[in-house]
């Protein structure tokens, strides 16, 4: 995926290196942003109706778990405990948490390599996810997949795919299977906006609408494909409109509002379950960290990042919960401490777990391994 440099450089440190090579970022108007934020808050309050406190607190807890988990991932990555590529999800938590709160456990989820958040939100244990990052035998993929290839059959989490857009035809296939088998399971397929430029996206949407397959395509538009802004890569940057080319239903959604994502997903899920219809959701979000841990960050400004951080999905949701007296400080403190504990446990579990046995190198290549000498008849 990304180009690896010897030293992981955080976005912040690269920003401080000065403006050499900086590509001008799209202008973000402060006034518009605050207006949007206030409007989002108001909308979020309306969306609370009908949801019980337990559900709301669970959404908050999941988002904060992902945030803390990712902060810890960055920490242990920098300490050299985990290797390879590591794409963090900080800033986008509301997307996976909101969307996955609208589906059932037996529904399928496929995503890209920026997947730790989806894995946790689908119900995988932080232990198995962290152990996978550590490349340990107890990891969700037995240490063979790593950060980009997490799987858990128990909760129908079907990866973790490393080629941009590669998961989109696969997800179309799981949706095809649901219809073929006559179940009412839906598939959620997550990908970044850069994947929209791949043929795999267009080929899949065409088939999904043509054959009426219950796949919900969720484009997490975080504005950058690695270091290339949306505007520099896409002739029509309004992703949700692309659905019209396939006569598919679509919506664009505020990806910083967990309840907005939940509601839009729920509408799409209903279309999928009832009528086997696909939907394209464009969820507008932002990643606060670099593309990967080796991102120099010289394609956007610190100011731009800060402006989006004003609309941090967790802060936004927390403000709503507090205003509505859904949580008090004591509860928040407790959640925070429990989540930190959970993440620490995950790290301890990963550290203490064994590496895969050397024999594991040669297992899981074939489900039916062939030994010609055994099959030979003459």
């Amino acid at each position, binding site marked *: 995926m990304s180009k690896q440099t010897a030293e992981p450089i955080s976005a912040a440190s690269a920003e401080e290196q000065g403006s050499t090579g900086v590509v001008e970022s799209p202008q973000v108007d402060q006034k518009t942003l605050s207006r949007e934020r206030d409007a989002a808050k108001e909308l979020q309050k309306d969306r609370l109706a009908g949801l019980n406190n337990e559900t709301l607190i669970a959404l908050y807890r999941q988002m904060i778990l992902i945030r803390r988990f990712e902060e810890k991932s960055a920490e242990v990555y920098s300490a050299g405990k985990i290797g390879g590529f590591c794409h963090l999800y900080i800033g986008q938590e509301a997307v996976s948490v909101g969307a996955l709160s609208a589906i059932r456990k037996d529904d399928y989820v496929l995503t890209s390599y920026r997947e730790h958040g989806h894995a946790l939100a689908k119900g995988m244990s932080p232990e198995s996810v962290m152990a996978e990052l550590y490349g340990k035998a107890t990891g969700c993929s037995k240490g*063979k997949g790593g950060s980009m290839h997490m799987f858990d*059959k128990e909760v129908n989490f079907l990866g*973790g795919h490393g080629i941009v857009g*590669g998961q989109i*035809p696969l997800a179309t296939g799981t949706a095809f*299977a649901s219809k073929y088998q006559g179940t009412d399971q839906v598939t959620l397929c997550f990908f970044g906006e850069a994947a929209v430029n791949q043929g795999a996206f267009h080929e899949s949407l065409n088939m999904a609408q043509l054959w009426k397959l219950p796949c919900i395509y969720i484009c997490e538009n975080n504005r950058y494909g690695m270091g290339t802004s949306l505007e520099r890569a896409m002739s029509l940057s309004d992703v949700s409109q692309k659905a019209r080319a396939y006569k598919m239903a679509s919506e664009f959604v505020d990806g910083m509002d967990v309840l907005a994502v939940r509601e839009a997903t729920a509408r799409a899920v209903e279309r999928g379950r009832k009528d086997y219809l696909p939907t394209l959701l464009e969820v507008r979000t932002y990643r606060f960290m670099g593309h990967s841990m080796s991102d120099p960050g010289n394609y956007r400004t610190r100011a731009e990042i800060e402006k989006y951080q004003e609309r941090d999905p967790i802060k936004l949701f927390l403000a709503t919960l507090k205003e509505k007296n859904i949580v008090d400080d004591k509860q928040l403190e407790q959640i925070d401490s429990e989540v930190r504990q959970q993440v620490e446990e995950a790290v301890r579990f990963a550290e203490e777990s064994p590496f895969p046995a050397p024999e594991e190198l040669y297992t899981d290549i074939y489900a*039916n391994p062939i030994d010609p000498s055994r099959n030979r008849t003459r």
Partner: protein
Amino acid sequence: MPLITMREALNQAIREELARDERVFLMGEEVAEYDGAYKVTKGLLKEFGPKRVIDTPITELGFAGLGVGAAMVGLRPIVEFMTFNFSILATDQIINSAAKMLYMSGGQFNIPIVFRGPGGSAYQVSSQHSQAIESWFAYFPGLKVVMPSTPADAKGLLKSAIRDDDPVIFMEQERMYGNKGEVPDDPDFTIPLGVADIKREGTDVTIVARSLMVPIALKAADKLAEQSVSCEVIDPRTIRPLDIDTIIESVKKTNRVVLAEESHPVCGVNAEISAEIMQRAFDYLDAPVKRVSGVDVPMPYAKNLENLAIPDVERVVAAVREVAYLD
């Protein structure tokens, strides 16, 4: 046993497996209403209906990936490429998804899928529609690669491929669809993957050949018999995993070997077989391993040039005579 064509044998295999297992379905370009571009899937839509026999848009990457996704959750797709030339568009899904899914997922998601269709040289269709690319797929652990050379092998191997729990690349040969042979009509007839077949026993020189090269090698063996040279012809049938033991045993007996293939010589399957023979039977060789390959050029259109590009009986005969030091 009934005498039928390769095309009919493949059709029987697909029909029997569709009837046997509800999870099996067939998809590809023109497989249904058109009855198949090469008529391999003739009559299947009528018999099994549009749920099981599905015409796709021309969207190879898309439907290959869709098949892999469906295979992740319990279906057993047969994905037809109208020709393997078009599979090149789908290689990301075949290689990065199908071949590696079981490994990357730590053993959780196997992919029971067959990618099939004709490959190899065709008749006067120039470079993009006439090429043998089996070595690409044979390169990847996680895939199985099968290339039948007779109608009976085609049927028995395809049925095994469909029942197999791993991704199988099943490469038929466009020029061989009309070849006839005796084929068992027993629905339980299968041939295990990964087992070579000795198509002709002999004592002087081993010829290893697959797909279109098998009938050519057998004709060459007939000619050489008239010249008092006894050839053993071995068809690996499965390229990955390769039944190298059968080849090595034969080389140890004949001490001379010719490797024939349609594909380009560079980084080809026979380069691999040759290396294995060096390592495992070097002391048994009385002559260097000789390869006969498609020439190292894109396929031309002109009939005379095309004929020059593909190995023929004369080239195989000459190669055998060379390793036997007869000329």
